[in-house]
Structure formats: structure tokens, C-alpha cells
């Protein structure tokens, strides 16, 4: 079972994730329309690129925008969650050992204490994000079962990962469960809202080009995000 999941299963899920995201990206860019979107994307490349980069940069910077600064609680949850969600899958020592063995390459591995903190961070922020959905009326009205499912799909590999990390219960069983959750997550990325892994950057670039080209970017320093 372990060999199946970390062999063909891993290849397949990573493959579906990457190919799926590639297709999503191509479809997104192909579907942009200068006249319908009312943005002259290609006519002013310099202003467009500048606007796109500014729009991404300030938003991936913790407290880099007015929106992040005015909602500090959400900002902390957001960044703790996302930093862990990006770093743990790629830079955890145990993952890199497996990558080396199964895929023939590996990334840099992070310190185990940092990894532990990040994993706990992801779980704690996921819990608070769920509570936030339940408690705040302005978020509750928007929340659907799908939103909770996405949150669960994202957090499940971390919960099971920590169970393995601390060797609670039957290690080999939880390791299998962990891998299954991880692979479900990978496969669901291109087909769900999790596609924002890529579409966040494209969408931010798009609105950045809108502001950079059309909505004042060529008039001064650009939008004070």
C-alpha cells in the first residue's frame, strides 16, 4: 500500500495537480479579453508588468496592504496558514527523504523545530479560520459547506502529519492516511477553489494590470495598496 501510494500514486497526484494547474492557467490567460475586461493588456507592457508585480508583491507581504493592516487578526491567520501550507509540503525533512527516494530529487530541508511550529500554526489557524466563519456574521453569510470542505481538505494532511510526527497510535496506519489526504489535496487543487494556488497570482496580476495600465498607474506612482 505504502509503495503504491508513494510510487504511482504520488506521480499521478503530482501530475494531475501540475497539469491541471497548467491548463487552468492557460485557460485563464486565453479567456482574458482586452475589450470585455476593458484593459489594454498588451498595448502598455511596461505599465502592465509594473502594475502586476506591485499588485502581487504588496499582497504577499504580511501587513503590506491597507487591507492587511486594518484586519490584523485575519492577516496573522492568513499568513501563518499559508506559509505553513506552502513550506511544509516542500521543505519538511521527511518529505524530502521520500522525494529523493521516489522521485530522485529533493529540496532544501528545514529545521524540525521550525517545521513543528509551522505545522501547529497551520492547524491552529485553520481552527480559528473555521471559528471565524461560524462566529462573524459577515463571514457566516458567505460560508457554504464547500468552504468548510476546502478548509478540511487543506488541514487534514497537517493533522495526520502531526499524528505521524508524534507517533500517536498506529504509525503505519496514520502514515497511509496522511499520504492519502495529501494526494487527495494535490488532486483537488486544479478542480476546486484551491486552484487559487495559481489563480491568486494571475488574478492579482490582472487587477494590477488594470490599475497599472488603465486606472491611474500611468499617472503617478501607482496604487497605494
Amino acid at each position, binding site marked *: 500500500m505504502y509503495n503504491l501510494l508513494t510510487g504511482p500514486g504520488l506521480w499521478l497526484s503530482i501530475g494531475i495537480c501540475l497539469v491541471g494547474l497548467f491548463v487552468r492557467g492557460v485557460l485563464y490567460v486565453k479567456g482574458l479579453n482586452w475589450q470585455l475586461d476593458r484593459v489594454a493588456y498588451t498595448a502598455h507592457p511596461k505599465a502592465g508588468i509594473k502594475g502586476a508585480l506591485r499588485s502581487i508583491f504588496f499582497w504577499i507581504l504580511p501587513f503590506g496592504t491597507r487591507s492587511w493592516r486594518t484586519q490584523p487578526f485575519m492577516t496573522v491567520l492568513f499568513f501563518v496558514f499559508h506559509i505553513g501550507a506552502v513550506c511544509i509540503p516542500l521543505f519538511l525533512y521527511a518529505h524530502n527523504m521520500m522525494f529523493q527516494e521516489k522521485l530522485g530529487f529533493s529540496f532544501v530541508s528545514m529545521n524540525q523545530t521550525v517545521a513543528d511550529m509551522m505545522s501547529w500554526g497551520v492547524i491552529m489557524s485553520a481552527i480559528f479560520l473555521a471559528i471565524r466563519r461560524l462566529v462573524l456574521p459577515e463571514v457566516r*453569510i458567505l460560508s457554504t459547506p464547500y468552504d468548510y470542505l476546502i478548509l478540511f481538505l487543506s488541514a487534514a494532511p497537517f493533522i495526520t502529519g502531526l499524528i505521524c510526527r508524534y507517533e500517536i497510535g498506529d504509525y503505519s496506519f496514520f502514515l497511509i492516511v496522511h499520504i492519502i489526504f495529501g494526494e487527495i489535496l494535490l488532486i483537488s487543487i486544479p478542480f476546486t477553489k484551491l486552484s487559487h494556488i495559481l489563480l491568486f497570482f494571475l488574478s492579482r496580476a490582472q487587477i494590477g494590470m488594470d490599475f497599472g495600465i488603465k486606472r491611474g498607474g500611468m499617472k503617478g506612482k501607482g496604487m497605494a495598496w
Partner: protein
Amino acid sequence: MSEGTLCNKIPIQTDEALKILLSDTGGKQYYQEMKSLDVDTRLLWETIGKTCKSRIHTWLKICAHCGMCADSCFLYRINDQDPKQVPAYKIQSTLGEIIRRKGKVDNAFMMMAMETAWAKCTCCNRCGLYCPHGIDVGIMMGYLRGLLYQQGFVPWELKIGAGMHRVYHAQMDVTDDDFTETFIWMAEEYEEDYPGLTVPVDKVGADIMYTVNAREVKHYPEDLAEAAILFHLAGEDWTVPSKGWEQTSLAMFAGDWAACKIQVESVYDAMERLKPKRMIGTECGHAHRATVVEGPYWAGRKDGLPPAESIHYVEWLAEALRTGKLKIDPKKRIKEPVTLQDSCNYVRNHGLKNITREIMSYIVEPGYFIDMAPNREHNYCCGGGGGFNGIGLYREQRNKALITKRDQILDTGAKLVIAPCHNCWDAIRDLEEEYSIGIRWSFLKPLLIGMVEIPEHLKPKE
């Protein structure tokens, strides 16, 4: 298909149709007929298929439902933080739902969507600055308005407004002759005080082609005189086109994209005909957005730019003061607490944020200018943008919406509010009428007339 005689899917195309619709005071019969107006669900779904491409589609799909847009919306804040006023909810429950149902929505749904699109959003675009994904609900509401307009679900005044543009190429029943005659007449009125004051009509190759808001012609002709006087004193080589002089677009508020194209092309034709170095529009926010920012796209101009360089009045004024074309008498500068309204349509849609502050630095005695908080691109809508001011059906909601601006002004302690935008100017006038907070409000032109120095050679001879 149930279609009303007044409320239907057909745009107003003739003066006769305009007069008939106008005679239905307050849209009484119009709204009555709307209650039984059928939804052409096939047309709705076909239109979405053709026009809802990856940008809006992705926005609707990846919205994380995080609610970070809630607090950015002044209508959410002023309506006791009603969750139904959260921008993401407003668009998901209307446009999002239409798409989920593949266009199969009924009359009641469309009536709800109409109220959401015109009474719960002024298309101020502020939420777009607060969403991590960069989702701009204002843009989507504009798109939704287009779908609603196509189906005949549009507030009475805006159906008329869009029709005016189709019939008169102006937002009101002001003809080309009315325009030139009024402008020339106003200049004549002031010729004694400003010898040589004229209004050059249709001059080819002038430095400036000036465009206006039709209501200046109809209701505020003084504004035309002031514009002429300031160009005259600045020694500008300027002209007005006898056709294509109207910069505004109620069609944009209505979501009548075909009328938007008709309107903006009339101005671009004037630019092509008169070949001015620059076009300058009056102190109006949405007019600038319609003609300079969005217009090139309606007209199919791939570079996204009008045929001639086009700037807002505040840009010209700042330049004239900076270069000394207009000189302010230091003794006449504003010496009382004064604040400034940023128009969403040029601050969040064209980046004109510092240029107005530059003007303040010339015309206000240091220490007297107080900015509202928040300001610049983070400023709140006046409360009446996006057509909200003009819709009788939603007057109550609009009046409540004014409270945000009222409180922002009160917090500055200023008694004078400078509003270089017709819509903002109206909203601030209305908030004073509604809430009596003891303020005055003004465009820049009348203030400038009172403080510019008249060059010796332009003074009247005794």
C-alpha cells in the same frame, strides 16, 4: 413574452418615446409594469456565455468567502453591518446565482438583483482594494447592470438617461444648438468684466478642446462662463465642439453599453474633426471615467486611449497654477478650514490623488486644508455615486448612504467642502439639505474666479 408599454427590453430610441416615458411621473406606471415583465432566460444565458469570460468567471469561482471586503464597503458599514450588504454576498447572491442557475431566474429575482445593483452598490470599486484575490465587486456590479438593462430591469431615471444619450448625445434634452448658444450667451454676459472673452466654437487645431456636463448647459450655465473666464485669463488657445461636447454618460450607470459607445464616439469624432492637442473635461468624475478611462474600450480602441490626450479639469488647473498661467492673489486664498472630496471615478479609476492636493497647496492658506480620513484611493464614495443620486425609487437608501460622507466631513471640522465632481457635489448638497450640518460646498471654478489675479492687459478699461 409580457412586455410593458413603458417598461420593456427595448432601449429608448426617439424623442417621442423619451417624452412618453418622462410623462410617467416618478415612473409609477413603469415600475408597475416591471412587476410583470418576463425574463428572457435564453437571452440572459446566451449573453453571459458571450461576455462572462475568465476574469469575472474566476472572480466568482475563487472568492474565498473570507469577508475581508465587508468593512471596505461604506454601505455595509452604514447599514448597521448588515451581512446582506457584504460586497461578496451582494454579487454572489445576484450574478453568482444567475450563473449557477444558468440564467433561469424569474421576475422577483431580477427585481431583487436590480435593487442590489443600483441601491446596494455605487460601483465605487473600493472593495477591490481590500480583497486578497483582487476581486473588484464594483466591476462585476457594472457587468450585472448590463445584464439587467438588457432585460428591462433598470431604474426609470436611468432608462431615460440612457435614452437621452441615444437621442440627444447628451444626458439631458440639450441640443447642440442649445449648447453653443448657451455657452456664447454666458460669455457675452461677462464680456464687460473680461474684455475679449469669447467662446471659440469648432476651432481646428486648438491646444484645448473643452467638454462639459449637459446639466451645466441646462441648469448651471454659470459653470460654462467660469470655464471660459479661466481659460481666457490663462491665455489658453481653446475651443468647444459644436457636436460631441457632452462628456458624461448616464448610459454607463444604466449598463446600456451600446449607448455608451454612441455617446463616447460622438466626443471622439469631435476630437478627430478638430484635432486638438488635448481634451479637457469639466469637473465631473463619472464623465471623466466614461470618456477618458472606459470610453476607449467601448469605442474599440486597442491602446485604451482616447484619440487625443485627455485630462480632467483638476489636472489642467494644477498645471495652470504650477506654471503661472493662472496666478492666485495670496490675500484671497481660502483662510478657513476646508476639506476635499475625492471622486471615486477619478481617484480609484484614474489615480488623480495628489494633483488635487497640489491645487489645495496653491489656493488654501497653509494650515487650513484638512484631509478627510480615509482619503485618496481609500476614500469613501460621496454616497450618491453610480447613479444612486438620481434614482427616486431608492431615495431613502441613498439618504442613509450620505451619512458616511457627512460624518467624514464633520470629523474634519471644515465648513467648506471642495468637490470637483458633479455627483459628489450633488450628494454633499443633499446631505446638507437632509442633515443640516452647516457646510458649504463648491466646485473649484467659482472659487478660482474669486481669487485669480487678472493680468493687466485683460483688465477692463475704465
